[in-house]
């Protein structure tokens, strides 16, 4: 099964933000990385898919037409994890995750409690469960956001820069957990990310915003080429694919304006 985007358009205050996007797919159980320069529209694309931002389009997953669903059903099937949630809120970690569960499932409270407890344990957040969100560090908050996403058990999980505040240990943990959790639950996972090495290493599939070309897709090796990185990020980079070792993308220098 796969998420297939036939067409996606988003206009904000009369300005076309997303246009000419189509023919993209993302396999269930795999990680798809969404790449692109700052302001290319990565967040907008994810929000448009989730129905958080108003958008028009046609996308389906196994016969489920996303843009024909009621807001409630869509929020159940698709979850968008925002880039940074920085509430000065006194909500505790447990309460926040419970909230994410309660807004997705109609079930008895004890089974919701169990789902929350298990997710917290899985993401090693049990020791933080009674802390208010306002007292967490940026990285801890990002891990809590992930628990919010996971406990809803969405069929499509859209993550916006989920690792930007994480230390190296937790970055690797996050992607390993994402990979195995996606495979276990047959979830479509799309991750917007800046770190090309992480993308090259963990993504099975890549969507990339390319100026003038909309969004192109392919395997990491097909999409991540030195030529394309010049066009998309205006950088000179070395890309290494080695058997049995993680792939690496080493940025060498930013291109000066006359070389772009």
């Amino acid at each position, binding site marked *: 099964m796969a998420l297939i985007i036939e067409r996606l358009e988003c206009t904000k205050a009369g300005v076309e933000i997303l246009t000419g996007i189509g023919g993209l797919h993302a396999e269930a159980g795999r990680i798809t990385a969404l790449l692109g320069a700052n302001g290319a529209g990565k967040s907008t694309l994810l929000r448009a898919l989730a129905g958080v931002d108003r958008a028009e389009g046609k996308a389906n997953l196994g016969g489920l037409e996303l843009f024909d669903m009621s807001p409630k059903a869509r*929020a159940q099937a698709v*979850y968008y994890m*925002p880039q940074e949630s920085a*509430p000065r809120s006194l*909500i505790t970690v447990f309460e926040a995750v419970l909230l994410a569960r309660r807004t997705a499932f109609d079930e008895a409270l004890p089974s919701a*409690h169990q789902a929350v407890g298990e997710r917290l344990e899985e993401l*090693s957040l049990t020791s933080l469960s009674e802390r208010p969100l306002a007292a967490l560090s940026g990285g801890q908050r990002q891990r809590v*956001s992930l628990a919010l996403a996971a406990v809803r058990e969405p069929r499509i999980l859209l993550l916006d820069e989920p690792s930007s505040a994480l230390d190296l240990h937790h970055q690797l943990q996050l992607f390993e957990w994402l990979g195995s*959790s996606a495979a276990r639950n047959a979830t479509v996972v799309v991750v917007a990310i800046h770190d090309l090495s992480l993308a090259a290493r963990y993504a099975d599939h890549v969507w990339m915003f390319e100026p003038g070309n909309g969004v192109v897709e392919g395997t990491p090796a097909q999409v991540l080429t030195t030529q394309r990185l010049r066009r998309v990020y205006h950088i000179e980079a070395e890309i290494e694919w080695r058997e049995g070792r993680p792939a690496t993308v080493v940025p060498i220098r930013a291109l000066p304006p006359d070389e772009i």
Partner: protein
Amino acid sequence: MNDSLSTGPNRSAAPGEKRWQRSVDLHLAKNRRSHRLILLTALLMVIALSLDVATGPGDYPISAVIKTLLSPSSMPPLLQVVVWEIRLPIALMAVLVGAALAMAGAQMQTILANPLADPFTLGISSAASFGAALAIIIGLPSLLGAQPGIAASAFAAAMIAAMAVWALSRLQGVSTQIMVLIGVAIMFFFHSALGLLQFVASSEALQQLVFWTLGSLSRADWSSVILLALAITITVPVFWHFGWRLTALRLGELQARAMGVEVVRLRLVMMICCALLTATSVAFVGTIGFIGLVAPHIARLLVGEDQRRLLPMSALTGAVLMSCSSSLAKLLVPGTLLPIGLITAMVGLPFFVSLVLRSRREL
């Protein structure tokens, strides 16, 4: 290592098989603690209410007052009238107004994501007093009957102010700080409109108008108590129904929207409910400031953000504060009933300033 993620299906075979239970137990323990605090506050409210009924001009002994409450017919008629027609409606009104304003304040702080929001700071109270004053001056009461006419006019004006706040909160780039400034502008607008009314009013009407601006429980009677109780009965189920979604808003608007909360509609419904609670309160007792600001903050510190506990705790805290203020208004200057709005303002203003100072980093 304890900090590693357990993936794969074997995780339940690990040594602490039910490790997830720990966070659930902690959560449930916290809930029980909150429930005890809510019960305790409810008890405090009953005590404050009794104290309020027991005090007042006349210097009747407490035992006589209690007897009159329990079996009115056995006591002298004068005491019956004092307790049942004057003191009890006033004391109940204090409790209801406190609860109504506190709930309105809690919800406005939630939907506008602003710790300084409450019916008073956002100008809803001033709008309601303006509406009530207008009804008195142009003689609307004679059309609809005194109390409902004033209440309806107060409600209409409060709705206009609430809708103005709601509409402006939808504009792009309007931050929560700007919202409060706009609210202050709305407050001043209705304040000066009220001043204009006072200027042109006859001397009898002027007497009544002073009552709105200072806030006083002295005109409470059974019909106003019942009307306010009705307004609370209408809004509480709405608050309860949207409880999860309101708590979700405390995670930030984007996060709430991602969870399927229709934020714009939720804000609209809540603003209407807050306007109803505020307008009904203000129509009967005038402008009472700061209860709606202070009570939800105390409640939040005690039981946290979860609406299922925050809402009852806010209501009870507001009721206790208002009930104590009512007793203070009688006791502070013996023989004189001070306007209760002055008492709540004197208690609330220092708190308001401390909140402003605490949020100065974000301004």
